[in-house]
């Protein structure tokens, strides 16, 4: 009907939906870049393996390759690339969910406590000596769940309103960062170092175990996210009109917040509390597409691209020195945030 959106009707009109033309173009471009970055991640690296060699290994033809080359491609580069895409995707989706739920571009999970809870849980495990990867993941998961429960319970006032969620989240974030500072100050030097490294967020050494966790989570969370998309969109006219239009507002707000929390948990378990991807991915996508709709899965694609890119930059740009992906996203993301604020101010003052 409007030029910006095309209506699609299939199967004798049993299926019908509308889609923004700019969204389709943007998603296409993001997918293309994602494929390019994935190829770079698979085909380049410290150990020089020929392009043909990598292709052969990926296609299952191991005849001309050494076992070290096979190991490098299949058990180092491939899982690391997949882990980056899944963790970044999880961050992008959770950011889109919480920014929409709070109706605020700063309402991203790393600023309102959800990521902080997972980080604190993991740090607790690391500094009490249980430095195993599985323990850290469990700690991150439990911490995220506890923090989310506390934030949602404190923000609930016969309904879940966005501004309350943000204010409560900021308060909980402050408390959690104090807890982390305390844990680090009490820990052994070695544990404190491991903890700090983990808190930066990194994809170093991620293996098929991490990818497996991510894949199972995606299998459950992607359908849930698709179901949540329309209700989240319908909330855009405000709780009152959304209720009058037949949406069970409180139930959906809680359900959607839980889905967002689960995505945060997935990302933190795989990559640690990587900064700014959740904030930036939906924001960039909104400005590219003109902003209609919650943009959940598309933010996920862009989030995956951003984290994969950050990991590649950290690995290759200053090689042989390696930067954790979390440092790259923090530097670039921080600069991006400042640029946005600067541009906004220029616009309102001009």
């Amino acid at each position, binding site marked *: 009907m409007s030029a910006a959106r095309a*209506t699609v009707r299939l199967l004798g*009109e*049993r299926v*019908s939906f509308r889609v923004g033309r700019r969204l389709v173009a943007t998603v296409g471009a993001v997918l293309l870049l994602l494929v390019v970055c994935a190829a770079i991640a698979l085909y380049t690296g410290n150990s020089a393996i020929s392009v043909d060699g990598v292709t052969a290994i990926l296609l299952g033809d191991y005849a001309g390759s050494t076992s070290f080359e096979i190991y490098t491609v299949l058990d180092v580069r491939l899982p690391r690339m997949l882990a980056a895409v899944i963790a970044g995707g999880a961050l992008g989706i959770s950011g889109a969910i919480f920014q929409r739920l709070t109706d605020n571009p700063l309402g991203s999970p790393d600023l309102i406590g959800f990521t902080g809870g997972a980080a604190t849980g993991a740090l607790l495990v690391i500094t009490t000596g249980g430095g195993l990867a599985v323990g850290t993941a469990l700690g991150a998961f439990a911490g995220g769940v506890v923090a989310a429960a506390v934030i949602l319970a404190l923000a609930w006032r*016969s309904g879940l309103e966005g501004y309350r969620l943000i204010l409560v989240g900021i308060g909980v974030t402050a408390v959690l960062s104090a807890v982390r500072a305390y844990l680090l100050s009490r820990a052994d030097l070695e544990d404190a170092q491991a903890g700090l490294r983990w808190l930066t967020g990194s994809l170093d050494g991620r293996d098929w175990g991490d990818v497996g966790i991510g894949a199972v989570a995606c299998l459950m969370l992607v359908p849930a996210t698709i179901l949540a998309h329309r209700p989240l969109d319908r909330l855009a006219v405000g709780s*009152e*009109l959304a209720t009058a239009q*037949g949406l069970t507002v409180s139930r959906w707000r809680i359900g959607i917040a839980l889905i967002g929390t689960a995505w945060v948990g997935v990302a933190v378990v795989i990559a640690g509390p990587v900064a700014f991807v959740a904030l930036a991915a939906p924001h960039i996508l909104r400005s590219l597409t003109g*902003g*209609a709709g919650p943009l959940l899965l598309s933010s996920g694609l862009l989030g995956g691209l951003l984290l994969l890119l950050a990991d590649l930059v950290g690995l290759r740009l200053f090689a042989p020195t390696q930067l954790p992906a979390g440092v790259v996203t923090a530097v670039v993301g921080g600069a991006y945030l400042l640029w946005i604020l600067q541009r906004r101010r220029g616009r309102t003052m001009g």
Partner: protein
Amino acid sequence: MTGTDASPDALEARGVSLGYPRREVIEGLDLRIRRDSFTVLIGPNACGKSTALKGLARLIDPSRGSIVLNGHDIAHRRTRDVARELALLPQSPITPPSVTVGDLVARGRAPYQSLLRQYSRDDERIVRESLATTGTLDLIDRTVDELSGGQRQRVWISVVLAQQTGVLLLDEPTTYLDLAHQIEVLDLCARLHAEGRTLVVVLHDLTLAARYATDIVAFKAGRVVAQGAPAEVITAATVREVFGVECAVIADPHTGTPLVVPARPPHLGGETQPPAEPTHREDRSRS
């Protein structure tokens, strides 16, 4: 469009108490909205008329009592089914950023849509019809932000029309509009009423209310003070009781309906009126 039951009332509140946490605004409200009536709710700011409207539309759950729509208690019905029989336009609905008129009105189709069936040909046709009814079809591709106040209000009415309900609740649809646009919106309401819809509208202007309403309900401090045809409700005594304002009520020279003429003010030699009972300022942030 309306339900099939024979009840003379489209909408009814039975002993309903409503309020916000720790603050009851309305207690024991009994209210009947006649089917096919154009009912206008009047009363001073913060008298509970908007709260009553929200209660009738299930935006606030009553702490006691029940709301009956077309013969059925709405507490026992799916909210989606209720949304096919009753639509509400809040006083200040939120416009999603950079939304077009067509996309906004399409949101009114939500109670008929599903995950797979998001925008059928029926939806498209009804969106266009709803816009045509309010005379805004030519605005369909414009963004809502660029519309004038009068246009925007007609578009919002199209949003609730797209729900295709027999009962329409409008919370102060003329507030912030100039006189010409107030009349435009009320003429539109009268046309919707004539087409067979039941309307419940909150208004502040008593003279306009008396012109357009078939029934008027006067609220004060959470209670219904008077209810009936405009000529029965809009009297000098009721206006004094509800608003604390001395006035004469004469016949509208054009329509014969009650016309409220406030008493001569002090600076023109009128008697100084006793100050009206302190009424709380309308708390707009509440919603």
